[in-house]
C-alpha cells in the first residue's frame, strides 16, 4: 500500500476531537478548581482563625488529598478522560500522577516497586522546577542582589 492511501485509511479511523469543546471543558474545570481553592482559603481563615499564609498551605494540602483519594477509589481517571488539562494542570494532577504510579507498581514490592516508581511521572515537574528555579535564582542574585 502506498503512503497516500495509507494516510487516507488512517484518517478515516482517527476520531476527530472537538477542540473548542475540549478547551471550554478545561476552562470550566480549571476555573471551578480555582474557585474551590479560594473558597477553602476563606473557610480556613474564617472558621479556623488562622493567618492567610497558613490557609494557603492548608488549601494546597487539601487539594492534594482530594486528588489522591479520588485517584485511589478510581473516580479521577474517568474525570480526567472528560476534562483533561482542566484537572491535570492544577495541583490535583500532580497528586494524581504520583498516586497512580505508586498504586500501579505496588505488587512489585515496597522498595523496588512503590519507592522506585513513585516519582516516575511527577519527577519531571520537580526536576524542571528545581533546575529553572536555581537558574533564575542565580540570575536574580547576580543582577538584582537577591
Amino acid at each position, binding site marked *: 500500500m502506498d503512503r497516500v492511501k495509507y494516510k487516507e485509511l488512517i484518517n478515516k479511523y482517527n476520531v476527530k*476531537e472537538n*477542540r473548542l469543546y*475540549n*478547551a471550554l471543558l*478545561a*476552562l*470550566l474545570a*480549571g*476555573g471551578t478548581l*480555582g*474557585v*474551590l*481553592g*479560594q473558597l*477553602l*482559603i476563606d473557610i480556613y481563615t474564617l472558621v479556623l482563625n488562622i493567618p492567610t499564609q497558613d490557609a*494557603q*498551605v492548608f488549601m*494546597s*494540602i487539601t487539594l*492534594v*488529598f482530594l486528588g*489522591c*483519594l479520588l485517584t*485511589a*477509589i478510581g473516580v479521577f481517571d474517568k474525570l480526567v478522560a472528560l476534562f*483533561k*488539562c*482542566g484537572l*491535570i*494542570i*492544577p*495541583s490535583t*494532577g*500532580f*497528586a494524581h500522577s*504520583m*498516586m*497512580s504510579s*505508586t*498504586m500501579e507498581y*505496588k505488587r512489585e514490592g515496597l522498595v523496588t516497586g*512503590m519507592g522506585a516508581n*513513585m516519582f516516575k*511521572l*511527577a519527577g*519531571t*515537574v*520537580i526536576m*524542571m*522546577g*528545581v533546575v*529553572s*528555579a*536555581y537558574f533564575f*535564582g*542565580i*540570575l536574580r*542574585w547576580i543582577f538584582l542582589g*537577591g
Partner: protein
Amino acid sequence: MIYFNAFIFSGLICMLGQIILDNTKLTPGHITSIFVVVGTFLDVFDIYDKFVVWAGGGALVPITSFGHSLCHGAMAASSDQGIMGLFMGMFDLASSGIVAAILFSFVFSLFFKARD
C-alpha cells in the same frame, strides 16, 4: 469579585494547556513542565505575587504556583544567606505539597488496589 478572578485565572491557564495539548504532539508531562518553568520565570520580577493578590486561590491552584513557590523560597533565602541560600531555601515553601503528595499516596496505596 475575587472568586470571579480566581475562576478566570485558573480556567484560562487550564484552557491554554488544553489548546497546547490538542494542537501539538506534546504529552501532559511536557505541558506541566512548561507551566512550572513559566511559573518560576514569572517569579523573577515578582509578577506572580501580583497574580496571587489579584486572583487569590485561583493563582495558587495551577501547577505554575509550584514553580513560583520553589523560586520564591530560593530567592528569599539567597537574599539573606547569599548564594548558599539557593541550596538551603529552595523547598522552604514548596515542601508542603510534595510531602503531602508522598504521604497520601503511600498511605492510600496500602489500602487501595489499582484497577484497569
